[in-house]
């Protein structure tokens, strides 16, 4: 055992030597992630500066100009109520990105809290929490989201909750596993030996060091959440009109799928681009944080 750790430590020594670059630099060096970051930055830019970039109002109707084709004045045409499609896409980015990130964040926070408690205290508490998650995880995520969305009613905050419930268990488990492995690391023991209190150990030593896998997991679940939002909208549990959320746009555009297919294709493509960029960033991040996966 002891001599195995020597080997491991020496291996690690090599790794550490090699990984002198910072995570961010390595992320940027990852070609997929770089494209992802650029795309995502463009999307965020669009979302933030939608008001500046577009001369149109995303909500105000212009019925005389409904279903206008792509033209110079409307770069992506207009929707069935005459609103500029590009403007709605840009404003919609706000909602789609916000829901994706915030619900992931929410799940992350709850997951971290429960996972931390579960992992650190172990025993009965751990057992209870984990068994509860067993139960939650036995129900397919989307179904759970649908049911919760219905119980809570669909405003966008509730929608976020609905989308996050299914993910809590995942984060909690990851964190718990991390804690179980980190808990026995020597620096935690050293902290204990220097009279470090329980909570301090938990939140100063263990949680921050468990974050890498959580972050990777989170970046890859934001896109999942965005897709789930679209699915919910498809079933009729989307965000309230006239809010220009992509999923809702897709679902209402579906009525025009043959008459004016751009109303379905454009939001779909933007969802794909967003999810694609986030997934690439997630891939890059995983590679950057996990030197083992390096080529």
């Amino acid at each position, binding site marked *: *055992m*002891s*001599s*195995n*750790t*020597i080997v491991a*430590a*020496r291996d*690690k*020594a090599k790794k*550490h030597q090699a*990984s002198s670059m910072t995570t961010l630099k390595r992320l940027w060096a990852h070609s997929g992630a770089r494209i992802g970051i650029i795309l995502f930055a463009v999307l965020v830019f669009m979302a933030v500066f939608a008001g500046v970039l577009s001369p149109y109002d995303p909500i105000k109707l212009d019925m005389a100009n409904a279903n206008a084709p792509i033209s110079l004045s409307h770069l992506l045409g207009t929707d069935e109520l005459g609103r500029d499609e590009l403007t709605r896409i840009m404003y919609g980015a706000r909602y789609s990105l916000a829901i994706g990130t915030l619900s992931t964040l929410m799940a992350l926070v709850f997951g971290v809290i429960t996972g931390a408690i579960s992992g650190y205290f172990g025993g009965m508490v751990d057992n209870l929490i984990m068994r509860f998650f067993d139960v939650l995880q036995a129900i397919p995520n989307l179904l759970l989201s649908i049911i919760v969305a219905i119980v809570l009613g669909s405003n966008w905050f509730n929608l976020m909750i609905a989308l996050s419930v299914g993910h809590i268990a995942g984060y909690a488990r990851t964190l718990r596993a991390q804690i179980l492995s980190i808990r026995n*690391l*020597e*620096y935690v*023991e*050293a*902290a*204990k*030996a*220097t*009279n*470090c209190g329980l909570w301090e150990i938990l939140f*100063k*030593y263990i949680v*921050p*060091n468990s974050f890498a896998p959580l972050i990777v997991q989170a970046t890859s679940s934001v896109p999942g959440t965005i897709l789930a939002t679209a699915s919910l909208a498809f079933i009729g549990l989307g965000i309230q009109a006239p809010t220009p959320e992509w999923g809702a746009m897709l679902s209402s555009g579906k009525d025009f799928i043959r008459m004016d297919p751009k109303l379905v294709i454009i939001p779909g493509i933007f969802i794909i681009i967003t999810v694609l960029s986030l997934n690439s960033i997630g891939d890059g991040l995983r590679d950057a944080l996990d030197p083992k996966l390096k080529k």
Partner: protein
Amino acid sequence: MSAPLIEARHLKKYFDTPSGQLHAVDDVTFSIDQGRTMGVVGESGCGKSTLGRTMIHLLESTEGQIYFQGEDITRIGKRKLRSLREDMQIIFQDPYSSLNPRMSVRQVIMDPLKRSGRFQGKSALDAETDRIMNLVGIEERLKNSYPHELDGGRRQRVGIGRALALNPKFIVCDEPVSALDVSIQAQVLNLLQDLQDQLGLTYMFITHNLSVVKHISDDLCVMYLGQLVETSPSDEIFKMPLHPYTKALLSAIPSTDVHNHQERIVIKGELTSPIEPQPGCRFVSRCPHACKACLQHQQLEELLPKHFVACCRAKELYELEGRVVK
């Protein structure tokens, strides 16, 4: 002779595992005198680390007593434990996993200082941190570096600094050099010796590297499967190992002396599992001298002055070699 600083009596530490109770430390009795270094050697998994951790209360002992400065500390309250912790520290084997990757060198050392409450105010804390860094030989410029930016030797110095921050009397060194390359190992060993000389520290030095242990320790414990099989001043053991296991262990060390190859006692088999072990000598399945009596419980006996061994045949074997027990 000075009174022992720390003493373990019939110390036991069992772990519950899915396949049964694991006797990691089983009925260990020994003591360390103030200012001396006690080496603990033994094979991987024999319970060295567990013993060390139990001694300084990082693990709750299952049975037995630990006396620190004459006081039983096995069952003490939280408050007492806090102050006790400042007297007893630990240095770990792996300089890579024993430092929080998210704390800078300064933070690592300052953290226990802050908690001890001995230094009020930022300047006092800073000054003390600097003093310790200086003591363990970390350059000032590395103050704000993070562990991953340091090499193994420096990291190990940081670990030592953290242990020293609380001004302890007793330090458990759990294989502090076995992850280091020889050239760096020498630096760290030198540092540990220097510190002992300066601060009058008492060490319990755990290792499986016998050359290192001979170099650094005054006394020696040899452990086998959770039990103490032999203990004495270390020169004594190296000169005259009494337990068959110790003999095998010592002869197994590859020597750099190319001219006199020493006769090697190669023992068969490997360490067995410490889970629910059979009573009697635990080395019996590998021992070339095993006999019926070995299946009985083996008492640690003082065969030679200050030289204790737990083997019923030790005396016999010793005499076989033509020597006489005084």
